[in-house]
């Protein structure tokens, strides 16, 4: 795939790209379907109940049934809502979360784009989904939706800052923003993976990532028991499915990013386990991050909006700045020692 990208564009290679992209989109949709299924199953098991188990064998067709139900629902738009904005908001929310998946390297051969500014591109695009949420909240002509939209704008903007700054620590160690380069630097035993040298950055990044994803314990914008559903309260049918799709695809993208940046990408924990293909290791680490996010949802209560703001600005931001300083100093010292 990589060599196809650097050659001049021909009709043949364009066709290959299109087919691969469409296949990937379908694969991601399948992953979202079963991601939702696994979330409900794991949450159920943590709560001593089986989760979905009636539709299809073991409940595997549950999400399919849910999507079918959403598709055949009536498309209601509130009477005084802003129609063009109402219709466009879910799409604005969904598109960036899918686009960022193009920049992540899944193995050393399988990637869609080899950008030298991979990390920066990722962060810039993921901030765009905020617009979709705020638009959805505004265009619904509903006070609850407006409150949810405003809350989520504040939350997403304040947590984007520690997210970027803690990723800078990784960039400092690896010397490049290119994601493939970052992963290649982490080969060897598992203590080479970035989460150990960058433990502070890893902690800050994971917390900021969960806040970016609007997941518990930071799921104020869609606080089910307070604002009834926050910014998507007036959405039903397939528009609502778009928001849900955006959230889950973004969850997949974020877990994949954490795997690439901190958990060693496609490298095995020990060199002698190299015979297992890299994609399997990638998938295992990615699944672990996904499970961790779901585990947090089943356990933690919600943080209040003002506490969330003070956590973001007064705790995470100074920690990530401190992380950069310490990393920079250590990198310089190592460079000086090595001559």
């Amino acid at each position: 795939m990589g060599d196809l990208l650097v050659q001049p564009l021909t009709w043949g290679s364009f066709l290959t790209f299109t087919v691969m992209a469409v296949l990937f989109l379908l694969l991601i949709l399948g992953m979202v379907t079963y991601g939702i299924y696994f979330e409900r199953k794991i949450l159920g098991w943590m709560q001593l109940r089986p989760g979905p188990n009636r539709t299809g064998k073991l409940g595997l067709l549950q999400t399919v049934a849910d999507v079918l139900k959403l598709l055949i629902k009536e498309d209601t738009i509130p009477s005084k809502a802003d129609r063009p904005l109402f219709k466009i908001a879910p799409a604005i929310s969904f598109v960036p979360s899918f686009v960022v998946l193009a920049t992540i390297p899944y193995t050393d051969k399988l990637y869609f784009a080899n950008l030298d500014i991979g990390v920066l591109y990722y962060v810039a695009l993921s901030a765009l989904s905020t617009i979709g949420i705020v638009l959805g909240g505004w265009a619904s002509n509903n006070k609850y939706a407006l409150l949810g939209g405003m809350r989520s704008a504040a939350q997403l903007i304040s947590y984007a800052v520690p997210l970027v700054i803690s990723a800078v620590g990784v960039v400092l160690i690896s010397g490049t923003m290119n994601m493939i380069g970052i992963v290649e630097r982490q080969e060897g035993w598992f203590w080479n993976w970035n989460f150990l040298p960058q433990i502070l950055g890893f902690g800050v990044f994971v917390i900021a990532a969960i806040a970016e994803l609007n997941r518990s314990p930071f799921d104020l914008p869609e606080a089910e028991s307070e604002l009834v559903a926050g910014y998507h309260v007036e959405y039903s049918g397939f528009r609502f499915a778009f928001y849900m799709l955006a959230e889950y695809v973004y969850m997949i993208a974020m877990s994949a990013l954490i795997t690439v940046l901190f958990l060693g990408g496609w490298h095995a924990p020990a060199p002698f386990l190299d015979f297992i293909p890299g994609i399997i290791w990638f998938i295992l680490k990615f699944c672990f991050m996904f499970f961790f996010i779901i585990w947090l949802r089943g356990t933690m209560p919600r943080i209040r909006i003002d506490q969330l703001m003070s956590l973001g600005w007064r705790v995470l931001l100074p920690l990530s700045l401190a992380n950069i300083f310490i990393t920079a100093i250590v990198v310089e010292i190592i460079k000086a020692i090595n001559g």
Partner: protein
Amino acid sequence: MAIRTEELLLNVGPQHPSTHGVFRIVVKIDGEIIKEATPVIGYLHRGTEKLAEDLNYTQIIPYTDRLDYVSAMTNNYVLVSAVERLMQIEVPERAEFLRVIVMELQRIASHLVWWGTYLLDIGAMSPFLFAFRDREIIIDLFNELCGARLTYFYMRVGGVKWDAPDGWIEKVRDFIPYMRERLKVYDDLVSGNEIFLARIKGIGRYDAQTAIDYGLTGANLRCTGVKRDVRKDHPYSVYDRFEFDIPTRTEGDCYARYLVRIEEIKQSLRILEQAVEMFPEGPIMAKLPRVLRPPEGEVYSRVESPRGELGCYLVSKGKDSPYRLKFRRPSFVNLQILPKILVGESITNLITILGATDIVLGEVDA
């Protein structure tokens, strides 16, 4: 030019996942700060007190089940004890012990419902299921005893309807250590959780004088340091034979109410232990005339329900149905404090404070 801002009039309820029933609060908010809050009730009013004027005393008891449907046994008891006081009936001891056991189990079940739903409002979804799992054991015990899971209709004037079946007391005895274990698990899961503590410490604070002025009772009063419990101040049934403490805290905020209710579960388990030990033999129903005709007079009987002091004021004119029956419902009185303490709080804290007040709409509206 300054930006013009307006206050927003927001309607919380009557259909809302966190208002514990059909309860409506109209709040005027400025950004996220509440400037004024007005509760609107009456969506569940069923006219129990008026209906009671046509029915004889045994027929009213099923209606009382449905007042505070989360703790039906205490409702049954308050009506039955009012009639017994008016008619000066001596209730047999075994019946009184059964009543105490059942009321304390009911208190635990009601507090478990409160705990699960309060944490669900705050955002954690797992404790709700654990609480209902444990409550299911209590409900199954009640199912074996009196044949219903929620609206028991167990107490009668002069005693109780059914005797405990074989093996029931042993099951109650086995439940006590199981519940103590579960309380430890709940502590691990919730009480030390920093997010949870940050959410409820210092919220909704009021002092003892405010609480007394507004007529609060139950955990809402005991969290401010006032040690008032009907079971100790005006002992009814056989409560004077048991040793138990009244948990109080002094902070007066939501966290204090949380801790008081968890401690009340522990004290209920203590009472249960003693009651199961001292359980006597004997009849379960006093000798009564076929038609109950209390003499003319008025009586007020009170009970410590899980929500506060539940009272029944009965005026009888010598007939077989009451002339006037009035229930002093604790949730109705407890929610009067909301307009005062909600001013200045944010909407998230509204849900937290409402949950900690523990109201049940069946009781608020009667």
